[in-house]
Structures are given as structure tokens and as C-alpha cells.
């Protein structure tokens, strides 16, 4: 079973700027930046909305949400059961490559 310590390795993945792993009640389980708590609600809320897209799109479960930003520090949100993972991308990295790296990492934990 994956632990918070496993997720701390996320920060070393190329392209990851900041990350936060949040429980579905908003409690931050793992992070690598000081202001993670301020984003916890958004990560959980948007993750829940994305989970609910399954009701509207033929049962499709989403892989990730990407919010593009002018700064290039796009935000990615992934659902992990009772937890939600938020990633703030490094401005120079490719968003598709990063999303693929994160999914590979997450598959490696299960």
C-alpha cells in the first residue's frame, strides 16, 4: 500500500514544480511547498467534480484535469480513491509528457 513517503518522491519527477496530496476531507497528507493548504480545497473540489463527470459521460472515469495558465505553471489534478493529487507544472516542461510521467509513477505505486 502506498504511503505518504512514497508520494514525497513526486517532487523529483522532471517537470513537477509543486505537488500536494490531499484527502477527500481537505487534509493535506503530503506536499513539497509551504502554501499547500491554501490549494487543498480547490484540488479536492475540482477532483470531485471531475469524478462526477462519469455520470454525464457514459461512465468514463477521468485520468486527469489540466488547468492551463499563462505562466506555463499548469495545474494537474488526479483522483486516487479517497485522495486527490494536485501538481503544479514547471513552466518549461511539456504538459502531456508530465501527465504521462505522473500516471506511470502512480501505476508503479499500486
Amino acid at each position, binding site marked *: 500500500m502506498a504511503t505518504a513517503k512514497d508520494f514525497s518522491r513526486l517532487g523529483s519527477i522532471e517537470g513537477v514544480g509543486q505537488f500536494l496530496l490531499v*484527502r*477527500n*476531507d*481537505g*487534509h493535506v497528507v503530503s506536499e513539497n511547498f509551504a502554501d499547500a493548504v*491554501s*490549494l*487543498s*480545497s*480547490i484540488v*479536492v*473540489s*475540482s477532483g470531485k*467534480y*471531475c469524478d*462526477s*463527470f462519469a*455520470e*454525464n*459521460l*457514459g461512465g*468514463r*472515469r*477521468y*485520468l*486527469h*484535469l*489540466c*488547468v*492551463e*495558465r*499563462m*505562466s506555463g505553471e499548469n*495545474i494537474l489534478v488526479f483522483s486516487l480513491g479517497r485522495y486527490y493529487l494536485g501538481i503544479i507544472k514547471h513552466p518549461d516542461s511539456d*504538459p*502531456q509528457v508530465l*501527465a504521462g510521467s505522473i500516471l506511470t509513477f502512480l501505476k508503479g505505486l499500486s
Partner: protein
Amino acid sequence: MNYEAKLSDIIASLPEIQGGFLFAPERGVYGNQATGITNVDDLLQVALKFSKIFSQFSVHFHDTGNFRVTFKDLVLFATVLEQGQWLFLFYRPSLSPSMVNMTVQLALNIQSDDEEEKDILEITPPLAEPTPTSITPENKARNTGIAPESKLNGPLNTLKNELSKYIGPVAELIFEDFREEWETKFSPTPENLPELIRVLAEEIDNANDRKTFKKAMETFSGKE
């Protein structure tokens, strides 16, 4: 701007784009070219959920752009247009995001000979701003029409605190979202509090917790 024509152009330009639709707050879903993907009611739900996601992110980040939700066999792309309208596309994951961005941007920037140059909204009139009961620097900053000295503030704070017991820290964000909508659609009066309580209760997943929450809030129904 004729967004329906723009949408058709975008869908026609790339074979990987399977469909799309438009959404306007006062009009709902229109220009639907996603009938093969799901029905209009579900498209409306998708649009409303995206509006909520957008409003939450834009509070924190002032440079948000396009949104993308990736599924195994489909990507849902969403971009905000003028006056709170949205353009949605469904496309195959093999299509690169930058290609989609470029295609959409190009289509939205190109003006046809028939389009007027002055900035008018063709689809719907702008949403009317809610009239606050008392505009002060305090409640203006709080983005609420309720005066700080109003007797509603006590019950509203209790509502928020009670909600957080069941859904955690995310309660504050959800509460503010629904409160704003409530103030827009109804008069923020004690008589209309039950409507706010009703929609907030729906955010509680557990049926027993939802029942307990509603019962605890019964004291605020109709009272000042």
C-alpha cells in the same frame, strides 16, 4: 460573434475533434454538435460543473486559460468566451493540446465579413448584477450583498461551520459558491434560508449526515 459558426469551423478543421457545444448562463446549452457523445441534459451538467471548477481556480490564479479533462478514449476541452459563455470540444487523445489551442484561437480571432466590428453580445444580454442590501467597503470586499450587521450573518456562519463538520475544509469554498448563487437567485432573507440549506445539504454524501445537518439547521428556517 457567431460562436455557432466558429464551433462548426473548428470541428470541421480537425478530424480528431468528434464534437462540441456552447454554453451560456442565460441560455444553457446551444450549438450542440455532441449528440453522439451524450445527451443535452448531461452536457448542461458538464458545463455547470466546469463553471464551478473555473470559478474556484480563478479566485486563486489570475492567469487561468483553457481546461482539459482527459479520459482514456476522449479529451474534453473547455475555454471561456466572453460574458461567461463557454466553448466545449470533445476530441481524441491522439490530437496534441497545442494543435487544439491553435485551432480554437485561430477560429475565434478570424472575423467574417458579415460580423460587425463593435463589441456586442449576440446571444444573450449581460447578467444583471444582484442589488446588495447595503454596499459597504466590508461587504463589497466579501463579495456579498449582506450587510455586516445583518442578523443573517450568524445563521450563515453556523451553516458554514456545520457543513464543514461533514465535508471538511472544502466546506468554505463550497459554501461561498452556493451562497453567492443563492444571493443572486433569491433575496438574502431568513425566509429564503431553507433553499440555501437544501442545496448545501446535497453536498453531503452520507444520507444520515445529510439528514442530521438538515435537522440541525431547522432552527434557522424562517427565523431572523
